């Protein structure tokens, strides 16, 4: 079920109520049951996949532990250790990535194969079945695989309790769109459930409210204009396209960061601490910096389990750049089975590499020009350039096809007529004047909160230090902003969170 659905609105309070009423030891089992119910809200059959992935990684963990112990025993007795741990890791990887490939990339592979066959004049392949992408499969498979690899590396202990491990993989707040948790961080939290705390519940609910604000008020409102322009790109050019591109940057951030906030908040209400997933990414001063701030749980996953095993930066500069490119291409593919995502990932990789290669030269030029490095203006200029670069890549991410993406890129340089600002053209993108004002104010709030966080301010902490009446007014304002200004309900095509498709 979606966080912005009526089902979740009924589900979550019910889960909470029972969660706090039952004894601490039973809570883990309750979370397991409710997490599966949550996941089965999309399609009950999907739960089998989740169970399969959970089972494979849990057993591989046990086998790795058993093999390692056996090897140690044999070593002690002077026999050849015969370590099988690599085999179990490989098996776990093959099985998990196998189902990921089958469910996510099979159609894409067949389509491309057919394109190739058609180009060479051969008959197309027709698979006898239709594959439906299970929600959040990329997230939980990555989370489960991280456990296998952590056990293999000896970073975490083998988890013998299957139920505990299963609830780690399926924990519903972050099951379908992250943050992709690490077993070392989340698993121990199931051992010692935290007692009920009104402050924590309040803070969690506020976090969720902020998430809903970002998703319903900002992202889904921006999506209306964005969808109009990107789905009918041939009708728009110049300023309108540029505006839509900027709005998509707002939309995808509001959407994804909003989801993460809801997930983190929901976890917090129940006493769980989930990892931070975003750190004001649009305040980044370089593309590499952006990737340290955007979807942190995925970036660090790729760093730990792909970039470093590939050699990281330990094998020379050239190899480092190649590794960076590989990681970003894989990241693109992870986001979706389409060339648009691969190009998006590739572009980000190229920009990172180019950034690394020209870093010294740029620094020298700046020094010769007398540009002061640590001034606000320099920082702002860097942020602006980074945002423009990232936003250009977002066009590939959002466009329906690669040809659409190039068409839109071309449109950015055509028909720059600022009269669209005054002739009512913008009111034909699906948002009327009131809606534009709401969106504008929403973005301003988002920006203001970003600035406050960037300057190190803890907003919830600051709020809790204020007078009661002020706090209540703020709480009410936030609740009614979401309730009234949010895009939800019938007549509105309950748009799924963008990141569910990954």
């Amino acid at each position, binding site marked *: 079920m979606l966080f912005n*659905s*009526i*089902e979740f609105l*009924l589900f979550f309070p019910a889960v909470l109520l029972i969660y706090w009423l039952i004894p601490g030891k039973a809570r883990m089992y309750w979370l397991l049951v409710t997490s599966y119910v949550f996941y089965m809200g999309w399609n009950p059959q999907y739960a089998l996949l989740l169970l399969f992935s959970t089972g494979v990684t849990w057993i591989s963990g046990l086998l790795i532990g058993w093999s390692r112990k056996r090897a140690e025993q044999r070593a002690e007795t002077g026999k050849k250790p015969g370590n099988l741990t690599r085999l179990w890791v490989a098996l776990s990887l093959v099985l998990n990535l196998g189902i990921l490939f089958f469910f996510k990339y099979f*159609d894409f592979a*067949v*389509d*491309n194969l*057919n*394109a190739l066959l*058609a180009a060479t004049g051969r008959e197309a392949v027709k698979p006898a079945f239709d594959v439906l992408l299970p929600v959040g499969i990329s997230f939980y498979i990555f989370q489960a695989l991280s456990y296998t690899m952590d056990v293999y590396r000896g970073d975490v202990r083998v988890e013998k309790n299957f139920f505990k491990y299963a609830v780690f993989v399926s924990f519903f707040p972050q099951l379908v769109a992250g943050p992709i948790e690490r077993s070392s961080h989340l698993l121990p939290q199931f051992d010692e459930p935290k007692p009920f705390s*009104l*402050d924590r519940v*309040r803070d969690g609910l506020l976090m969720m409210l902020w998430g809903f604000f970002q998703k319903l008020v900002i992202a889904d409102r921006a999506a209306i204009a964005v969808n*109009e322009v990107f*789905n*009918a790109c*041939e*009708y728009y050019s110049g300023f309108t396209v540029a505006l839509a591109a900027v709005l998509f940057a707002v939309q995808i951030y509001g959407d994804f960061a909003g989801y993460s906030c809801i997930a983190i908040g929901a976890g917090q209400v129940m006493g769980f601490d989930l990892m931070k997933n975003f750190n004001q990414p649009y305040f980044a001063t370089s593309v590499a910096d952006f990737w340290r701030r955007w979807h942190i749980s995925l970036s660090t996953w790729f760093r730990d389990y792909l970039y470093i095993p590939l050699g990281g930066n330990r094998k020379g500069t050239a190899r480092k750049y190649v590794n960076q490119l590989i990681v970003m291409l894989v990241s693109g593919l992870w986001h979706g089975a*389409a*060339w648009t995502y691969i190009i998006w990932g590739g572009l980000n990789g190229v920009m990172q590499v180019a950034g690394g290669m020209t870093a010294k030269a740029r620094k020298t030029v700046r020094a010769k020009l007398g540009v002061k490095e640590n001034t606000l203006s320099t920082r702002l200029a860097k942020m602006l350039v980074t945002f423009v670069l990232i936003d250009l890549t977002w066009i590939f991410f959002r466009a329906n*096809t*690669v*040809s659409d993406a190039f068409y839109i890129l071309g449109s950015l340089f055509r028909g720059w007529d600022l009269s669209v600002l005054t002739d009512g053209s913008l009111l*034909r993108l*699906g948002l*009327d004047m*009131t809606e534009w004002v709401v969106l504008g104010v929403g973005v301003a709030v988002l920006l203001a909160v970003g600035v406050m966080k960037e300057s190190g301010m803890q907003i919830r902490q600051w709020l809790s230090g204020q007078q*009661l009446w002020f706090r*209540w007014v703020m*709480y*009410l304002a936030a*609740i*009614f902003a979401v*309730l*009234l*200004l*949010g*895009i*939800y*309900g*019938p*007549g509105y*095509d309950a748009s799924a969170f963008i990141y569910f498709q990954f």
Partner: protein
Amino acid sequence: MTKKIIRALAFLLVLALVYGAVDTVLKIKTSDMRSIVLFQKLKPGTVDVVFAGSSHAGMNINNRQIWEDTGIPSYNLWGGMQPIWNTYFYLKECLKSQQPKVVVMDVFMCGNTAVYSAKDVALKHVSAMPKGLNRVKMAFESFEKWQDAVEALWGMPYYHSRYDELVANDFHGLYGWDDEIIPTVQPNTDYVFPIELLDGNAAYEPLALTEKNEAYLRKIADLCRAKNVELVLTVAPFCATEEEYRRFIRVEEIACELDVPFLNMFRTWAQMGIDPSADFSDIGHFNNAGIEKYTRVFTDYLQENFQLADRRGDPTHPWYGLTEQEAAEAATPVYELAEVFRGDGAQKHVDTGVTMFRQRMGSWTLLTSVDTTPVESGDTVYLSCFSEEDASAYRGLLLRQVNGKLQLLLGGNESVELPETDKQIVNLAIIKDGEAYSVCFDGQWACWQETRSCAPYSGTLLVGCQELSAGGEKFRFSRTCVRDLEVYNTAWTKQQAEAWQPDALPEPEMPLGTINAEPAEVFALQEQFMGDDDTYAQNAYIDTGLKLFESPATRFTLAATILPEYAPGDNVFLSCFSEVPGEYGGLLVRQTDENRINILYGENFGLDIPCENGQEMTILVTKDGAVCSVWVNGEKLVSGVSSSVKPMNNTLLIGAQHNSEGRIFRVSSTRVKNLKVFAGVVEEEALLQTVLPELPMPGDYVAPSVNCALERPFVGNGYDRYADLGVQLFAAEEMAWTLDAVLKTTPQGNAGVYLSCFSEVPGEYRGLLIRQENEELAILLGEHGSLRLPVENGSMHLVITRDGSEYAVYLNGELAGRVSSSCARYEGTLLAGAQVDEHGELFRFSHSRVDSLRVTDGAMSEQDAMEASEPNKIESRF
């Protein structure tokens, strides 16, 4: 901790209070929800009769009329398209506070087979219901998905975004017309929409109701029985299908079984005086005239069958005294003339529908402005509401000219002395206040509050004629001119009447030849008419637009050259003829066999003339009022025959006829070499000298190619975007093409029109229309063909082939269906995302997305079409 919990609870309380206030303001408030909302405000125990059901109960019965005529307080408890289960829950709610003696339930919705309500309809009904268990149960019965029911009960998901459309009523919690003392029907109308009613007494087999409808019908009967309320079932007449009516027959059976009376008005509408051609405002609801008649039926029925008290004398009843409402009504005229009336002396008149003398003590004000120019011949009636049924009891109002001067008869056949005037146009105010009459003529009071007695007369106020008795035959059609007329149902004061100024009304269009003194050409054929022949670039028939028999007073001259060439089938040269049974008449020129031309004129008088194929003939026709003359090849065959034709709006057609319903039929392959029509009558001598020159032949018809394709995907925006492919898919009856389209579809929501090349002219619906109707894709083909496919999630690859009147539809690699449907020529072009309405204006802009569209000449073979309609994943992604 305790302190924190108290604080949290206090916050929740504040939140609930603020939420309640916000919810009250944002809540949807429409006038069609007021029935159930206002019902909750009624003083308990004040309603004796409840009319329950859909709009057929709510908009057809006038509670106010019942109250005024009988003193029975009744209430219409209804909602638009309110299903039976809603009626049940509404009644349950209603019976909590009211103890009606009778519940009259309209079972119109028993004819419906929907198991759930339309979302917006259900939302309004649920929102309007008082909070409680009945509301919850109703919500779950109304929505298919439980999520929708929960959202409707919550409400906010539906109306939270109304913040930018709030009006004063929202802040005051008003639904519209809330100040009415007696809830009346919806703002009704004088608009007349003629319909046909089926004969309910014919033999119809009963047809089962849906299980849900029958179950709730029985529940309603049980509920009434339990509450000791008499239940009466009824069904108001409307333009029902046979299937619907068969379900009402089933209701009749159930009613019989339950021992509940069922007033099947389909059986009795004729006795009730309902005139389907005059008493409806649309296919389902009465207009004012119909409402009055229909309400009267219940007034009589309730009085005859139940002991219901007259509560008009009860000062404690909330409806006691209606002065405020009446004062508001007084400012609105009950009748206003829309355009200057100019009588034609033959049949033209206006029936205002206003009864002036139904109540002896009634009050009204009539204000008019008339042209006093002496009428040269014929009758001279300006206004009449005058009974001449009984020579000893002539009464009412009659304004006419006598010897070139105005005469006003008022009350019991007494004239009013009008001052002399030499003005051409004079204003006249006539005020009736009970039995006191006042007349102001040209600014002077001819009489003031003069007492005259006038026995009740139920005839209506007529302009330009009289009627013998109420609703009887009209006569004395006059060539008078009334420039303005207003009627109010209250007596005005002297000052008000003196201050009145007539409006400058538009001049009317006059029937052909009734104004022009000299004959003038009004139509001339520009090229020879070659009949229904696709090889020429010419329409299959030509509509001249001339209403030759719009009035018995029309005067015209018609000169035509025809070329007899008999062929099997229809052979109509010219027609302006009524095919309504019993009303045959007009002008019809046709060839009935190889050597005979048949001319029908006037009231179906016939004339057979020998002809020779290939030998052209000249036909001249004149009509001067009721007098017709006909010449063929210069020989006068009909000389001044008097024969009146019932007025009709059929126009003069070349090569076709109008059928009894006014639709085109008998499209013929005849040839008309020339045709001229003149308004007025050309003198015989001049007419016989009229030369009809040889006209050029029409150009050859070349069926246009339909090859076209969308360059980029089309994405509708719902308000002004469309794509015109510029090709005519129905430019000829015999065309062959293949349409290949990939539509982006989703069963949720309603994308609307995907593709259209469709005529929306009433009675001429035809062409191609592909649109989403909820979870189905409706494909209309030709004139009668249709196919409905379940909407798939994602995209639907359609290939449609047309070969003449044979269509095949392929979907995603499979044959979805074949349709055989002829289609007359239609010149509209293929559009994506919108349609063209009957006036040629774009409308129905939609949110559809067409990923690709290609039309090619020629119909693909089945094998090719199946392959072509295979879903193609590559194209849609890269």
